[in-house]
């Protein structure tokens, strides 16, 4: 109960007898929804290989965010991660998959092709110009392809949106879609510079001090 009462101070309150009083049920439902997303991966081209496959691996581990059960099936899924170009022939199938998912369902569109048609927007007779021509999209993750970290940023944005967003008093009322990108005014160079500064500051080692701290100081195994 500790984690619940810590995370939801507005919804659960301790009654002096040791019991818990539920004050706002919306908070609990949204908290549970946001932290147990089951993604349906819809990967049609390079985004699925470059980004989506890396997210399940050990380096960028999607299980950290409670969205681990990624599988190519709409069964039990409530988050549709679109990764890749959507062509006209695929569009009805995508719509079918979306309609087979359980309510409430959320959609993350990743990559330039899924958001806008990408490089195939000109002189092309096949490519759908954006997934929102077919299904409503909640979070857009830009990039070509996005880094796995960008997908996680989109996932956290969606979780925040779910936690703050819906209420069972107004079913069907959704917030506007958001673009998951860096905040305005912050560039990639800023972040890289900050990281470089940190690395320089933390990574200085005084070799002589370090040698003195060793169990066997230098000079003991030279045969003398």
């Amino acid at each position, binding site marked *: 109960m500790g984690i619940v009462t810590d995370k939801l101070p507005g919804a659960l309150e301790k009654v002096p007898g040791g019991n818990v009083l539920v004050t706002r049920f919306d908070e609990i439902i949204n908290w549970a929804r946001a932290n147990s997303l089951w993604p349906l991966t819809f990967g049609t081209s390079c985004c699925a290989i470059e980004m989506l496959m890396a997210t399940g691996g050990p380096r960028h581990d999607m299980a950290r965010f409670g969205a681990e059960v990624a599988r190519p099936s709409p069964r039990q899924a409530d988050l549709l991660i679109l990764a890749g170009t959507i062509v006209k022939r695929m569009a009805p199938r995508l719509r079918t998959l979306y309609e087979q998912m359980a309510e409430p369902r959320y959609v993350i569109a990743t990559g330039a092709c899924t958001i806008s048609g990408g490089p195939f927007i*000109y002189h092309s007779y*096949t490519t759908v110009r954006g997934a929102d021509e077919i299904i409503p999209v909640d979070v857009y993750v830009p990039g070509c392809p996005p880094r796995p970290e960008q997908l996680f940023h989109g996932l956290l944005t969606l979780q925040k949106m779910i936690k703050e967003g819906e209420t069972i008093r107004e079913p069907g009322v959704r917030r506007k879609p958001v673009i998951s990108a860096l905040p305005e005014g912050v560039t990639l160079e800023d972040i890289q510079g900050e990281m470089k500064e940190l690395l320089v500051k933390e990574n200085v080692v005084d070799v002589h001090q370090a040698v003195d701290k060793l169990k066997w100081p230098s000079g003991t195994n030279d045969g003398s």
Partner: protein
Amino acid sequence: MDREALQAAVCQLDSSIRPLEENADRAAVVVEAAALPAILRRLRDEPEFAFAQLLDHVAVDWIDREQFELVYHLYSFKHKHFLFVSVFIPREDPRVPTVCRLYPVAEWQEREVYDLFGVLYEDHPDLRRLFLEDDWIGFPLRKDYQDDFMLDRPR
């Protein structure tokens, strides 16, 4: 058999076959549309050629000459040699006899060319669209294909 010898040997099969000099690196010949199945059957069955594999079948839209060029890529596992067989057909009435009785893989390759270029393969058992929707209007890889959906790049 090197390129020139193969090309000469194929041209001796029939008087209507002529070499295609535009292709520099592999043997290429031009045949008439009506004679295509008979010539491909001889190329497949005679042990001197033994072209057992139809690697690919593509079309080229020569809009300025008002012609389609249909190219059959043949390969022989026995002799390890390649041959391009080209057929030129008029653009306004593109018809050619099917070769899917000789090479079963041609059934889908011809469907692809029909889907994108609109070439009619006579006596094909199942000539339907392959990549595009069944109700698609027009043939997108023709040079004069127009579609309201297509956007031009701004200059």
